[in-house]
């Protein structure tokens, strides 16, 4: 009798729990927004207009540390509404059907974007990604620790930098670097050229002290003087060190800096499309976009953000001149085969001892 009573109570509780769960999911559409985002970009000042428009909604973030992680999460069925990958990964999202074509008329700030940047988000004539932040990959040098400042990607191989270089631990970046140093088009290589790139990267090893994985690591390596040359570093390496009073130069290599943009897409399975559009539109608002760019020393995709940027940085990085994107080596979207080839080469280089 007693046991039965307990059983009944348990059943009742279970039923209540099931009801509560159903209630929760039934009310889900348009009450929450899940953003698959790099950590650090959840800062409310980057999407203030959204908070004013939808004060009752707090975006939920799922953070990732690198593009590969975000892509495999999305690919494995993680439910998100908005995702923020970088340009060389955009094509993979489109190819895998993870994102939907966008109706740019729903983004009132879209027309203010640098057209050259916006074009990079188009596939088959449709806009899939909205650019937000753009930056460079180049060489940061501690000028006080070297006799000669390198002025090309090829200079990374100069024996005078033996043991003084750290390079970004990335198949894509190292492949691009070696290709530019050898004068190849990295997006159109023959198998012979790929072999030459591999051998060239192996030949770089005597100059390398270590590979760097995240930006805090390379900033420390340069600040401590463990390395003098930071290869494939982003804007922040130069800016952070210069701020702290180190003698550093952000090289403009003869072959051109590498540049890239990152931006937002909406999941093909999003149940909160309206909110997703509002959120992206808030991100590319002139002030929001400038707030982010100033914090990270990046360029902003919104042309009207430029006057709101730190003028010193605009000067150093030519943030006001979209032509620089055309003249630098803008990272193209990679196919799965290209990415596989580049990372395989890089792993073989690292395995070589």
């Amino acid at each position, binding site marked *: 009798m007693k046991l039965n009573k307990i059983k009944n109570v348990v059943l009742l509780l279970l039923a209540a729990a099931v009801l509560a769960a159903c209630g929760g999911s039934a009310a889900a559409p348009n009450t929450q927004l899940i953003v698959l985002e790099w950590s650090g970009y959840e800062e409310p000042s980057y999407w203030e207009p959204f908070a004013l428009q939808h004060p009752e909604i707090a975006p939920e973030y799922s953070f990732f540390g690198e593009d*590969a992680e975000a892509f*495999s999460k999305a690919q494995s069925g993680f439910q998100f509404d908005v995702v923020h990958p970088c340009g060389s990964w955009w094509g993979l999202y489109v190819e895998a059907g993870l994102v939907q074509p966008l109706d740019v008329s729903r983004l009132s700030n879209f027309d203010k974007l640098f057209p050259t940047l916006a074009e990079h988000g188009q596939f088959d004539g449709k806009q899939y990604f909205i650019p937000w932040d753009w930056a460079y990959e180049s060489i940061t040098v501690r000028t006080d620790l070297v006799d000669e400042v390198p002025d090309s990607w090829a200079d990374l191989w100069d024996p005078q930098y033996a043991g003084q270089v750290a390079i970004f631990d990335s*198949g894509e970046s190292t492949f691009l670097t070696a290709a530019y140093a050898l004068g190849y088009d990295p997006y159109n290589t023959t198998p012979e050229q790929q072999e030459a790139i591999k051998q060239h990267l192996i030949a770089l090893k005597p100059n390398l*002290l270590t590979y760097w994985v995240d930006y805090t690591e390379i900033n420390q390596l340069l600040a401590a*003087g463990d390395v003098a040359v930071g290869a494939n570093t982003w804007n922040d390496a130069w800016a952070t060190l210069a701020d702290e009073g180190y003698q550093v130069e952000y090289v403009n290599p003869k072959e051109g800096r590498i540049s890239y943009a990152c931006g937002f897409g909406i999941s093909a399975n999003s149940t909160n499309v309206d909110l997703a559009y509002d959120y992206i539109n808030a991100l590319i608002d002139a002030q929001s976009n400038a707030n982010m760019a100033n914090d990270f020393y990046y360029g902003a995709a919104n042309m009207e953000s430029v006057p709101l940027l730190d003028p010193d940085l605009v000067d150093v990085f030519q943030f006001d001149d979209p032509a620089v994107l055309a003249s630098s080596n803008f990272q193209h979207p990679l196919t799965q085969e290209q990415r*596989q080839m580049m*990372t*395989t080469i890089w792993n073989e280089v690292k395995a070589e*001892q």
Partner: protein
Amino acid sequence: MENKRRLFALITPPSVFLLFFFMVPLVIMALYTLKASSFGPLLPFSFTAFENFFSNPSYFVLLLNSSRLALLTAVLSILLAYPVAYYLVFYTGARRVMLLTLLILPAWISYLLRVLAWKVILGSEGLLNQLLIQAGLIQDGAPILLYSQAAVLITLVYVWIPFAALPIFAAMERIDPRLHEAAADLGASPSVTFWRVTFPLTMPGVASAFFFVFIPTLGEWVTPTLVGGVSGIMYGNLIQDQFGRALNWPLGALMSMVLLVLVGVFSYIFNRFIPITEVPVSS
């Protein structure tokens, strides 16, 4: 009957756990080696990962290097841990538990933090360099030890000494002190007693210490990432890369399986050719 039922009740939960959270994932991992890409269907089988892996000798060279490093780590840890365990068991009396706790204490701190601490010690502005500069032995602060295979070895040995000491300590504690008295009565010198009595009896502890250190070290990737630089990279780093940046899960799975087979082979050789003598002790 009652006993059997009790045994069944006892081993069922861990067996079920191991089946679902160890054996099944292992089989899934094995199947991944036959996939054409990280995502998408399992069928039709593809041997791309096998072709990639077996056509590239540099993977084997790295595997060999990593095995050598793991072997060296295990041997050095045991050499350093053995006297510590010996001292604790035979010379510290009632304080031994407290001293053993002190030995294990650093292991309570996050592994990552302990490895990072070595960066502070070995770096160009690190403690070791400062000391050498003050002593006038070197001029400028070049990172002489950090970012090398030596740095990986030093860090790993440091990390593993307490864990190597534990099984040796346990084996020594089990030795009947009367055996030493008997040896002395029979006229054996302390060194003869050590080599003929103590050492053989601690061999099982040494063997478990060896595997305790060797196996996890073989697949290590955190330490080489942090202190290894270009020359200190290990096989585990490449596996991690395959599952991370490279997004090549089939190749990563294959490389893991090769490592698993290798560990099996090492264990077999070790058990087969290095006899662990159980000296019969009658009381």
